[in-house]
């Protein structure tokens, strides 16, 4: 703590106890957070005034009481799911030699895939691709045709790579048909993948057995590998 100037009673007289109380109420008990231009006068007042020190004690006690309430940390599952949102371009763990990285696991592969799709792929297809490459590819806005695209969310650990894949195939008439959306992979990854665009607009998903469920339930009830159809 910088105490230069504290020895001057005159400077302390530049601030009243009421003003000091206002500083504590506005900025808290930690002098580091106080306005620079008022800190010196406040510290000088504290050095010479028992009433000022009583105000400080009251403010510090409030901070201390507030600090007794601690927030819980995120669950390991949430941490894994959020980390799994990482883009699938450069990988932190090299692919083992002898195993080619599928093109759909690479950003370059996605660029190639997009260029091969008759313009445009359906908006819905682009939407789900968004988690993987949405920030490098514009949404198509013209033309017609069908598209089958895959996107991937991956989590790279020290010894293995967990991957979730979603395949979207929407007819150019905009209708959804059974089999148009197929996802597979660890449940948290699949959930994160589909939540990016579908969760706000698709209230329910239909499992292959015809049951209508919410997204998370669809993913988890089928053990992370579902053939789901968004119900509009």
């Amino acid at each position, binding site marked *: *703590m910088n105490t230069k100037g504290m020895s001057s009673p005159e400077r302390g007289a530049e601030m009243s106890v009421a003003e000091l109380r*206002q500083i*504590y*109420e*506005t*900025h*808290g008990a*930690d002098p*580091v*957070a106080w306005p620079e231009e008022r800190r010196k006068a406040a510290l000088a007042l504290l050095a010479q005034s028992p009433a000022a020190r009583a105000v400080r004690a*009251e*403010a*510090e*006690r*409030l*901070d*201390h*009481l*507030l*600090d*007794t*309430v*601690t*927030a*819980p*940390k*995120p*669950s390991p599952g*949430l*941490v894994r*799911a*959020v*980390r799994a*949102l*990482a*883009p*699938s*371009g*450069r*990988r*932190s763990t090299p692919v083992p030699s002898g195993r080619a990285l599928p093109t759909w696991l690479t*950003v370059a592969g996605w660029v190639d895939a997009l260029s091969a799709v008759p313009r445009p792929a359906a908006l819905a297809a682009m939407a789900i691709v*968004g*988690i993987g*490459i*949405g*920030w*490098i590819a514009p949404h198509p806005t013209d033309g017609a045709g069908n598209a089958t695209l895959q996107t991937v969310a*991956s989590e*790279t650990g020290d010894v293995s790579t967990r991957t979730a894949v979603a395949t979207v195939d929407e007819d150019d008439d905009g209708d959804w048909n059974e089999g148009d959306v197929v996802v597979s992979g660890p449940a948290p990854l699949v959930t*994160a993948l589909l*939540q*990016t665009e579908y969760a706000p607009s698709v209230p329910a998903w239909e499992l292959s057995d015809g049951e209508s469920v919410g997204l998370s339930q669809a993913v988890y009830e089928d053990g992370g590998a579902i053939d789901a159809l968004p119900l509009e």
Partner: protein
Amino acid sequence: MRDHPDSRPGKTVRPASRTAAHGEEHDDELLARVAKGDATAWPLLVDRHLVPVVGFAWRLTRNRTDAEDVGQETFVRLMRKAGDWQPGDASLRTWLYRVATNLCIDRHRAANRMPVASETEIDSGAEETADFTRDIDIARAVQRAVDRLPERQRRALTLVHYQGLSNGEAADVLEISVDACESLLARARRALKADLRDEAADLLGED
């Protein structure tokens, strides 16, 4: 994590979003790498900001499930935002807390409910000691007092006291002026002092 000079014994360190420490990449640099598809940058951002964002959401919702949902959705939105991120427009943590705040407000409106203090969650991190029961009682009393604050005061206090934001940063998150934010903070602290004066003094064994 923000450094809080500790002049009193027993003071806890508040969780706060970390800004880049010396030698670490700035958030803007990490986001630029994410936008280029670099999978190694994203976990660094997650490790730096997920804990404080979920903690913040918990303090607003007082519900662990809601807090985790808000945390996940905040980072999903960040991933979608990465390509459009403009360095220097706003600090990442300000942006994260603004998104999380709005998500919490949406959930609050949708559920039309007030946050309910959870008697079972308050003990996270506490150890079984001779003072355990008294500490829990104090924490519960404080939590109830914070919950009684008007929403805007509670958000401002949470951002500044618990998340370690400056008054100006909190004003940015809440999209209000610094003066308005400081007015909220002063009223919140006055209300808490009044609310806790008798109760906390009793719990602390003071006269």
